[in-house]
């Protein structure tokens, strides 16, 4: 059996979805995939209830919520961690109680979880850096745009890029920024950098909204666009097409949420699920961007265009 699962729980299950913050659009979309999956599972008689909490960005509150879920004796908890290790203890408490814990996107340190599901953030950074280096022919001045300081995802992506940058001595980092994963602050920061630096050859952006903000800044200041990396944010993909950018993007698929619920139920049903499910990073480049944009209307304007998913994909990933 899988970690945490003791086999004493019977379907239909109650699932707890301990969200760290439900307001951002990425989260909202993720929640959409979760509720859709739960509806499916309800039809199959496997799930009876979904409890959703929103810690409003406060890791302390998230601990409190997970504690309440333990108290309410849910069968499984699906969680995006508000801090990469703050939840360790409460999660291992839950695990001890035989609750299936599936952790995705922002991961915890502890291994006392049923499964962790994520793309590889380090690979994210590495692949992005590789693409940019190739675009620049191994030589040029770049700006690195990071997410907020002090957060592991942002740190992991940045760290993943470092070996690639180290290996290419021709690449010079002019400066780095740390902003929220939002358009306006990224645009503000990039504008100041544009004025301070006449020569910028590329932008290594490690987040979708950051890329959109950067492109907008170049555009508004009338500067020629440079090669830029990013994510599947609809706004960035649309700008990419509209401005004819040299671009590259990957994604953190929102269906990680659905996959997590699916995995939890599978584990409760007695299947052995892998402790770590690595979801490959899809790549969006000039060859595939059109196929993504064709589906753009189905996604919110400030949302993320994620790749298709189905049960077969989930089963394949679980069979790793």
């Amino acid at each position, binding site marked *: 059996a899988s970690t945490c699962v003791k086999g004493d729980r019977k379907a239909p299950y109650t699932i707890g979805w301990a969200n760290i913050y*439900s*307001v*951002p*659009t990425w989260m*909202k*979309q993720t929640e*959409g995939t979760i509720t859709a999956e739960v509806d499916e599972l309800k039809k199959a008689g496997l799930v009876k209830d979904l409890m959703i909490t*929103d810690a*409003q960005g406060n890791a302390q509150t998230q601990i409190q919520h997970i504690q309440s879920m333990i108290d309410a004796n849910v069968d499984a908890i699906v969680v995006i961690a508000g801090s990469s290790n703050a939840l360790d203890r409460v999660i291992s408490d839950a695990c001890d109680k035989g609750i299936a814990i599936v952790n995705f996107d922002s991961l915890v340190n502890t291994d006392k979880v049923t499964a962790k599901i994520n793309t590889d953030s380090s690979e994210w950074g590495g692949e992005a850096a590789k693409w940019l280096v190739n675009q620049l022919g191994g030589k040029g001045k770049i700006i690195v745009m*990071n997410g907020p*300081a*002090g957060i592991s995802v942002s740190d992991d992506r940045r760290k993943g890029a470092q070996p690639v940058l180290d290996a290419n001595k021709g690449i010079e980092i*002019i*400066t*780095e*920024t*740390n902003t*929220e994963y*939002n*358009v*306006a*602050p990224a*645009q*503000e*920061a990039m*504008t*100041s*950098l*544009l*004025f*301070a*630096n*006449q020569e910028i050859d590329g932008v290594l952006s490690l987040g979708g*909204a950051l890329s959109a903000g950067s492109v*907008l800044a170049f555009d508004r*200041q009338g500067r020629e666009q440079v090669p830029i990396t990013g994510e599947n944010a609809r*706004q960035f993909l649309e700008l990419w097409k509209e401005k004819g950018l040299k671009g590259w993007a990957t994604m953190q698929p929102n269906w990680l949420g659905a996959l997590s619920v699916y995995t939890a139920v599978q584990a409760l049903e007695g299947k052995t699920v892998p402790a770590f499910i690595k979801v490959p990073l899809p790549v969006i480049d000039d060859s595939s961007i059109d196929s993504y944009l064709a589906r753009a209307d189905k996604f*919110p*304007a*400030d*949302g993320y265009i994620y790749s298709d998913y189905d049960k077969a994909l989930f089963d394949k990933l679980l069979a790793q």
Partner: protein
Amino acid sequence: MTRVKAILRNPPLLTFLLVALVWLVAGLSLRGFGAYGHLRYLLEIAAVIGIAAAGQTLVVLMGGIDLSVGAVITVTAILLPLLSPAWDPTGLVGVALVLTIAIGIGLLNGAGATFLKVPPIIMTLAMATFLQGMLVLVAGGSAVTVQNPAVLLLGQSRPLGVPAGVVLWVLVSAGMLLLIHRMPIGARFLALGANPLAARLSGVSTTRNTLILYALSGFFAGLAGLLLLGMNRQGYVGIGDPYLLTSIAAVVLGGTSILGGRGTYAGTIPGAILLVTTTALITVVNASPGWRSIMFGTLILALLMISGREARR
């Protein structure tokens, strides 16, 4: 000599001088910082803070604080595309609708503060929470890319080379200075802020003025939201979040007392520019996030020591 002393005793003027000094030093030492385009851009983003801080200035002058500014900005930025009717080619109907909502939110804040006797900080915090909840419903909804021509004009056009947002800010500033210094209601706000009981016994109605005050605060936050939306072309949840603390910081940096009854919008204007300038300055310096944060805080503190000495209580 006495002229110099008068300037040094006039906090808004002193803050202006400080801004000029920072610009001068930064312009000379950092390539590109002093470029006309850059300074113009700084003014443009300062305009958003300045307009959001207009309402905040009034609220703080009257001894309150408005923690719903960020949420109101987000709400207007999100709602405008949804509420702009397609049949209106000017886009003004949507603008009017959204501003009415912003004023309505302000009025609710005011009503809570005067009728329910809830401290403004609690009332506006609760309102911000409430609005967040509403946003969870609306967000991720259909189109939030703005097509509204009025808002796009506001955010994108540059009549005579001056960004429209800066023009709007100049108008707001003129209105604010008029309101505070040349209109009866400004004097009433100040009196209520300094001594509510004495003001009330002098025939100044608390109820009426509190309602007007928070309605104004909602209005200015809404206006800032529209400008921000126009500048970004797209609203998203959380777009207003950074403006809560910055609006308060601009007010206090401008020499307005957080206890109420003393201050002026003339201080908030350079306060907003100062904040934006400091942020830009820190952005172009290459340092680790930790060191940047330290530099930012130290710079604010240093500028404060030069400009913001509070008179002995």
